[in-house]
């Protein structure tokens, strides 16, 4: 915010008229002057305003203020709370969701967890390389789908409880206990949460285990589990191709193949594929970039950008 030697008068702008809750954003102005874009930069999640807001206009509804000096840019539209002005009814605001594909499979000796890496707010990809596989203890990881905030908070709570439990027990927690703690949080707060999670890990009593905790708070132990919006496209594939007792390499290749199909078909899944393998020897993480994934029906080879082609080497001179 720019420095000023005159007293500052607060002005309010009502935004977000489309939502039930009106959010107020306070803009500090000098009396008689307009607020500059810099003063709006603290607005949560919104880029700075490109144009000005007049104190007079700010007391009316945003739509009424529109003719008074708003330029029709995305930025203004964001401040007004409706990007429909600029882009025509396509949502790019809202809480971060992980329209996702998550997969967990047991193999002979452990488990492999895999996930895509797309986090979206509406149609905007907020993070194209996110890590949806979170560590809860040394030997148990969880794949998160649904609301990013909800699953992060659940993971944080469970990590905290498990830490204390591990100290009390003086040995690593079992996968079943971890899954149960997640399930209790998910079930008891089912009205407030949207979280679908797959818990996978290894312990010395039962070996590798996968537990599925979908919306609502069911807990189900399965030899393999899928979740997220992309999982709809995987039921058939897994019914056909799943087999018990794969080796570690087979299992890792299998999950990458499976997640890549979901990425190909599901708009809310994309980016890279991350896998986490957990067994008696420990944990190993692998990364598969989007252009190295197996191709499916009608998919074309990844192309380099035309600019790269033009820049690389000398184009043949045109000779007469």
């Amino acid at each position, binding site marked *: 915010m720019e420095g000023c030697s005159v007293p500052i008068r607060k002005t309010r702008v009502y935004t977000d008229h489309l939502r039930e809750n009106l959010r107020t954003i306070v803009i500090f102005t000098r009396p008689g002057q307009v607020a500059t874009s810099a003063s709006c930069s603290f607005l949560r999640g919104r880029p700075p305003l490109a144009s000005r807001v007049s104190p007079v206009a700010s007391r009316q509804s945003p739509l009424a203020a529109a003719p008074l000096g708003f330029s029709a840019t995305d930025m203004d539209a964001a401040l007004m709370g409706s990007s429909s002005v600029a882009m025509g009814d396509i949502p790019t605001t809202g809480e971060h969701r992980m329209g996702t594909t998550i997969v967990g499979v047991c193999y002979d000796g452990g488990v492999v967890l895999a996930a895509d890496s797309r986090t979206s707010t509406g149609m905007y990809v907020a993070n194209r390389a996110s890590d949806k596989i979170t560590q809860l203890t040394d030997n148990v990881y969880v794949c998160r789908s649904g609301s990013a905030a909800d699953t992060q908070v659940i993971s944080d709570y469970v990590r905290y409880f498990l830490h204390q*439990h591990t100290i*009390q*027990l003086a040995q690593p927690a*079992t996968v*079943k*206990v971890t*899954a*149960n*703690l997640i*399930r*209790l949080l998910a079930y008891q707060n089912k009205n407030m949460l949207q979280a679908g999670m797959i818990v996978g890990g290894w312990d010395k*009593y039962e070996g590798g285990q996968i537990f599925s905790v979908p919306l609502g708070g069911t*807990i189900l132990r399965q030899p393999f589990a899928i979740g997220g919006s992309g999982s709809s496209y995987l039921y058939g594939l897994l019914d056909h191709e799943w087999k018990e007792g794969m080796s570690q390499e087979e299992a890792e290749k299998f999950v990458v193949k499976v997640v890549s199909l979901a990425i190909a078909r599901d708009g809310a899944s994309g980016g890279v594929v991350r896998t986490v393998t957990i067994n008696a020897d420990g944990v190993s993480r692998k990364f598969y970039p989007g252009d190295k994934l197996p191709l499916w029906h009608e998919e074309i080879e990844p192309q380099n950008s035309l600019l790269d082609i033009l820049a690389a080497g000398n184009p043949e001179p045109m000779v007469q």
Partner: protein
Amino acid sequence: MSSIGTGYDLSVTTFSPDGRVFQVEYATKAVDNSGTVVGIKCKDGIVLGVQKLVTSKMMLEGSNRRIHSVHSHSGLAAAGLAADGRQIVSRAKSEAASYEKVYGEPISVKELADRVASYVHLCTLYWWLRPFGCGVILGGYDRDGPQLYMIEPSGVSYKYYGAALGKGRQAAKTEIEKLKLPNLTCREGIVEVAKIIYGVHDEAKDKAFELELSWICDESNRQHQKVLCYSFVHIFVS
């Protein structure tokens, strides 16, 4: 080694000049005056036995249980004030149940013993509570094998191969030490415990008694089970 507190024994929140809490020691005396309770850890499980002193010929046989199941995999026998013992059992049951509700798996015997010990110790911290007048032998069989714990009125809890509380504890401990426990199965252990309890029973001083036995072992599928003991009377009479 008894001594009178003389002024430092009126409250459980008072230390004596030589660092003792007399109320807790008096509570231990209550345990020492009760019927004997014995527990041993055999190679495949635990055996618990109680010398239940029968105060009246009118009492129905099998009533006034002294050995309680805390969980399917563990049992608890209390020596001392019987009502106090029942309170501890009730608390142990609820600890086991709430642990399973939160963590989704049965409580380990070590954790259960810790919680019971914490609870017993709690009652030695406040002046408005009196210490429990009973000691507890807790036996269980979990993922880490059979384990035997003894919790005293002071709240200390130790793991044992063999433990005894009550009037005949000195004699019982001597007998237990003579046993080769790592080689004993629970079937043999039951007979040994019965012999020990019959051995410490003083016909002249004590009244009639009832023997109560239980075990948790591989044979009982790691479940805590009461053992009926009609046949023992014949062994010793003949």
